[in-house]
Every structure is written in C-alpha cells, then in structure tokens.
C-alpha cells in the first residue's frame, strides 16, 4: 500500500523529498557518491524480480544479488582494492545456467560449475562456481553474464566493478586522476516486449532483430528515480541512485560504464568533462606520463562493454559574471572564479509578474540565494544550487515508455559552498 501511494505521488514531490533527506546528511562513505559492497570475497546469486519505472511500469528482470538479498538491477557494485585477490562465489536460483565474465581483468581462474562457451557456468541449485582473479589494475570496470549474453544482459545481468588504487582519492595512482567526489553512471536499456515474453514463458518468440528499447537507465533507474535516495523502500530491486552534487572548484570523478547493448552518448550539458581513462587504463602516452592524452568532451560515447573515467570541475568560469552577485569589494567565496569577481549579472531580470518559474529556479540567479517565486511554483531547489541536466544525447532516450521527461537523465547540482553534501 505504501509503495502504491509513493508511486502515485509526482516525481517532483519525490525529488524534493529525496533532496531534503540528502541535505540532512544521511549517507555514510564521505566523498563516494555511489553505493556498493566491498570485497575481496563476494557471495552472489542470480534470481528474478520486478523493477519499477517512474511512469508506473513494472518489468520482469533477472539479476545478480548478494546471497539472501533481493535481486538487484544492476547487480551489486563490487568495490575492491588494487592487488586484492578477488573471489566471487556464484550460485543460481534460476532454472537455466548463468555465469560471470569480467572484461578488463586478466587471468580469471574458475572452479566449479560446468564449462560454457566463455567461462564456466552454474545451474540452479548445483552449488557454486567460483571466479578468482587479482585486481591488478585500478579503475572502473564491469561484469556481466557470459552465458547467452544477448538475453541475459538484456534481462538485467550486469554490474560494476571498481578497483580502488593504492593512493586515496586518485583513481589511477596519478595526480591527474585526483578527485574529491566520485559518482557512477552505468547505462543500460530494456525492450519491455522481450521481458514480457520471457516472463510469460514465451522466450522462444523473442526476436532480437526487432529490438526496440523503451526504457533507458542510469544505475538501474529511469529518471526521475535516478535522483531519489539510494536504497529507497519503493525501489527494492533498484538500490542505486545517480545524484551528482558538488561545490564549485571541486573535482568530481565520473565512473561511466556502458553496460547495455547500445550507444548512449553521455552529455554533461552546458559543461565539458575531461576523459582521463578508458576501460580502466589512464589515457597516457607512456607509462607514468599521466593523463596526457586526456580528452575534453561534452559527450562521451562508449561501446557496450566499455568504461571511461572523467574529471569534472565547475567554478563558473567563462560565465562572465559573478555567480554570487558580489560587489567588487566583497571577499571571495572558496574556489570562486576570481577574474569574474564583482562583475554584474548581465541581464535585467523581468518582473516576476511577467514570468513563470522553472522547478529548479530558486528565485535568484545567484548561487545560494533565494528570491521571489510566483505562488503555485514548485521549489525543487532547496539549497539554491545550480542544476544542470546530464543525459543521453540521444534525446529520445530521455523518456519512460515514450513519456517525457525520464530515461537516461539526471541532474548535476552545483551546491553553494555552505551546503554540506553527505
């Protein structure tokens, strides 16, 4: 019943609720804006369940889970340290064989189960198959099923693997990969027709040549659920959110994972990101050279199976005006873009009687400031931050079964320096 009520409330209400909770500072794990489980030993299983989509949809899904826990979409994010000997014991509660493969990892040894095309797989109730590898190289990776991958990946059997470097807050043991906050953006898509056929025992009718996705996900959620809290009770199979928040001047690490079967150009709307690594390797001209081949992009398109790491910074540089509305004599804010200090806002604001407000407008153009908002407008910007929509640049992927807005989209919030994040 509660779930039904929560589904019925508008996504705007959900977002306000989520932001209010986040601003209160609920989460642990300072600086890490994504969720996962730490190793080096993981006991996983495969089971099914239903994921929810924001327009009220419910999709039959297969997924990896922590043994004894609900099915997860995507599977648990596995967080290990460089050099760890990672052990994954996989059992199976589904009536077909399953497995795990780890693109980017070397020398994965396998025991138990029975041989499959790519690796050993495990049947329902047949004990466990065990995968062991040394996480030799830090970086952002993924795992997925190596058994009937076209169907099993579509049905949800994907997840992220993060190998932490030996140097805290450097993704790749080099200052070029230094960050103060990190978030994950794992992209997938679903064709609900396929899931319905599988759910109703008609998998033999699945025709991938007619594939037509209708849902697009970040970390297993469609927007606006991407911006809700992690581990929300109304999304029991989709525990991970994608709600990047930062202060001006900070370095945010984006761990970007292309885990589906299609291309999703990831667009940091209004801003560039510096892509420093791909597939868990720093973009360097020679070992130790740093990210000297990094690419400054406003959209990064990865092949399925690929990952990228990008550094994102925001100071208000090149806006040409002072984002705090300072007078020239005022003191600087932390990490303020000094050359624009005290420069006036270049627009004469129209009379509020002549305008309507966007949901993320605080009533003032200045960071951390509020102003008059016409009655009836919804204030979804509790901290007077700046919101940037980050999304797939295939614009049609910003829908939930053809309903806009939704899909592969979330918001970046530039928070005023005074706001505590997490």
């Amino acid at each position, binding site marked *: 019943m509660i779930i039904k009520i929560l589904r019925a409330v508008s996504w705007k209400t959900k977002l306000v609720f989520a932001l209010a909770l986040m601003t209160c500072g609920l989460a642990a794990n300072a600086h890490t804006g994504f969720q996962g489980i730490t190793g080096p030993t993981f006991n996983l299983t495969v089971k099914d369940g239903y994921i929810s989509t924001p327009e009220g949809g419910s999709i039959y899904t297969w997924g990896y889970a922590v043994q004894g826990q609900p099915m997860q979409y995507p599977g648990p994010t596995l967080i290990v340290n460089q050099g760890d000997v990672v052990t994954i014991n996989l059992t199976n509660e589904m009536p077909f064989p399953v497995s795990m493969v780890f693109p980017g990892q070397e020398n994965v040894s396998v025991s138990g189960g029975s041989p499959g095309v*790519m690796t050993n797989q495990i049947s329902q109730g047949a004990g466990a198959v065990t995968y062991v590898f040394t996480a030799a190289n830090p970086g952002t990776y993924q795992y997925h099923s190596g058994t009937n*991958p076209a*169907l099993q990946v579509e049905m949800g059997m994907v997840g992220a693997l993060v190998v932490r470097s030996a140097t805290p807050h450097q993704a790749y043991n080099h200052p070029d990969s230094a960050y103060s906050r990190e978030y994950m953006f794992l992209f997938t898509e679903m064709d609900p027709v396929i899931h319905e056929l599988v759910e109703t025992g008609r998998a033999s009718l699945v025709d991938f040549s007619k594939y037509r996705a209708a849902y697009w996900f970040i970390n297993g959620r469609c927007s606006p659920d991407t911006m809700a809290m992690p581990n929300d009770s109304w999304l029991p199979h989709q525990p991970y959110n994608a709600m990047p928040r930062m202060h001006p001047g900070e370095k945010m690490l984006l761990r970007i994972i292309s885990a589906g079967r299609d291309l999703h150009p990831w667009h940091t709307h209004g801003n560039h990101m510096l892509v420093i690594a791909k597939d868990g390797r720093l973009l360097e001209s020679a070992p130790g050279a740093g990210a000297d081949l990094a690419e400054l992009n406003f959209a990064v398109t990865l092949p399925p199976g690929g990952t990228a790491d990008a550094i994102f910074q925001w100071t208000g540089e090149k806006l040409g005006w002072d984002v705090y509305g300072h007078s020239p004599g005022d003191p600087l804010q932390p990490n303020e873009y000094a050359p624009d200090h005290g420069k006036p806002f270049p627009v004469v604001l129209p009379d509020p009687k002549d305008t309507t407000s966007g949901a993320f407008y605080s009533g003032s153009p200045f960071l951390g400031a509020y102003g008059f908002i016409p009655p009836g407008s919804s204030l979804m910007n509790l901290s007077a931050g700046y919101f940037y929509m980050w999304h797939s640049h295939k614009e049609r992927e910003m829908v939930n079964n053809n309903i806009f807005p939704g899909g592969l989209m979330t918001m970046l919030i530039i928070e005023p320096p005074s706001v505590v994040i997490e």
Partner: protein
Amino acid sequence: METKFRKSKSSVLFILVLSVLFVWLDSCNLRPGACPEVAEYYFRADATTQTMPDGKVVPMWGFAQDSEFGKMDGTVSVPGPQIAIQSCTQKVIVHLDNNLPEPTSIVINGLTAQMTPVRYPDGRVRSFTHETPPGNPVSVNYGWQVARPGTYLYQSGTHPAVQVQMGLYGALIQEAGQKLAYPGQEYDKEGLLIFSEIDPVIHDAVAADNFGAGKAVTSAIDYAPQYMLVNGKPFMSTDPVNNAGNVGQHLLVRFLNAGLLTHAPTLYGAHMTVIAEDAHPYNYPKQLSSALLPAGKTLDVLITPAFPGQYAILDRMLHLYGPGKTVMQRYLVNP
C-alpha cells in the same frame, strides 16, 4: 658527381627492367614469390548461396578470384578472396567479370583511384565509379594506388545499399614488412575478422527480383538482420578455438566491418592495443577492452597475453540471441 649521376641513371634503368621483368614473370605465374610493383587480380562477381546453422539457404552475391578473365575457375565466397599485397606493391588492378543480373563495380575504401561515378537519369549517383555491366564480354578494370600499408575493406561501389549487404565485400591487406603490421608494430600470429550481417528477407527478395521500387521489398529501410557473420559464417559454440600462440607473443587482429550495423568487439582476458584505424597507425596506441567498429571501419589491434588460457572476442552489441547468433571468436594462448 658525373659518375654518381650515371650510376643512378643506370640503376633507374635496371629497376625499370627488373620491374617489367617481375610483372611479366608474375603474370606468367612463374615466380609467385617475386615482389611485384603492380598486383593484378581477376575477380568475378557472381551469385552463390550460404546455408545458415538453422538450415536456411540464403542467396548471396560474392566475389571469386579466377585465373584469367572468363575462365570462371574461382570459387565465389563471402567475404570475397583476401587481397594480400606485398609491401613493395604500389598499385592494385582488379579485372572484373560480372555474372550478376545487374551492373556492379569494386571500390577500396581508403585507397586512391580515379573515380568516375555513374548516375541515374535523374542525376542521383548509382555507382561511385565506372560499372561492369552484366555478362561483360571483356574485363572492366579498376586500379588503385597504395600509399601506405594497412587493413582495407573492398566492396561493391554500385547500388551499395543492396550489393554490399548481399555479400560483395572483402579485405585487402598490406604489411609494412615481414610480420610487421605497421612500422614498429611487429606481430607473431595474425587473425582477420570481417563482421557483417544477413537479412534473409532482403536476400530472398533480391534473388527473386522482388526488390526495388514498386516491388515486394522496396528498399533496405527495414533492414533487420537475422544472422551475424564473422568471416562470412555465424559463430557456433562447437567452432574450434583459434591457436593464438604463446604467452608474450603478439597476436595481430584486423577488424573490418563490412555490415550495416555497428559492432563492438570486446576482448575478455586482456586489453587490446589498438594500433591503427582505417590503415592509419595511431601516434599513441590505445589500450582498450572494448572497441567501437562502425560500418566501413577497419581497426588493427595487438593482443599480447600475459597468461595462458582461452581468450574470447565477443561482439558486445549483442545483436541477436540463440544458437549460431552470438558473434564470437575464441583464441587459445599456450604457456
């Protein structure tokens, strides 16, 4: 100074004589090991069929390599015969014979040639270069200058939306030297993977003259392939595993996409070093586990496994589902 001049003159003459001799010798097939400046091939575009793992017999168009024009002693294959020219070769000539019911031609993406497009009466381009009519009594010739070694895709340049997906494509490769993909890029073992697809609806319609304006299938706009091919064949899990040599050796894999879809070859077990794209070597090779291979693209990668075992290359676009529908190649690396 004078002596030097004379020397160089005589050496030019010597090279000329030699190369004429080599071309002559080569054309007589007397010296297959000689290094010709010009490499000539007799190709025939012709119809054939291919049987898919589910038993479906698909009409195809492909190229065959004949010993001379009109002899028709070659076997039609999809992809067409691999053109492997030697590092000294500077020009490629294909003498084309056309046994198809419509005009065709051959183009090589990335090699320079004098192109003479053929147009429909209303001005639209039908062929990127001059055509070979069906049943041509004498060969129609196509020539290219080869400026750099690398991996190239050849294909039909006529009505390509139909003819390329019917199977008129293949690979041309030139090494920089013995076991040398590009300057400084040595390898020990070599593999070449041409990705393509088959939509049997279109193939059947073309074979039955049911394709085109006003006919049952009007165009390729509803292209929905049912078969994914590597080197002309769907992958079967019973296919043998390729021998990739030993740990520490360099496996060169040339990826070509002759299909209409994007493919994403992903390596499991190691990273690949992408050394060249469209026959142009990178200044800084890229370390990737998943590569984007759009239609028409060629990529060269080196794989240097550090551990023995089985390595898989999977098309991570995961286009189709079912037996014989996964796109994969497997390599065994010995200790």
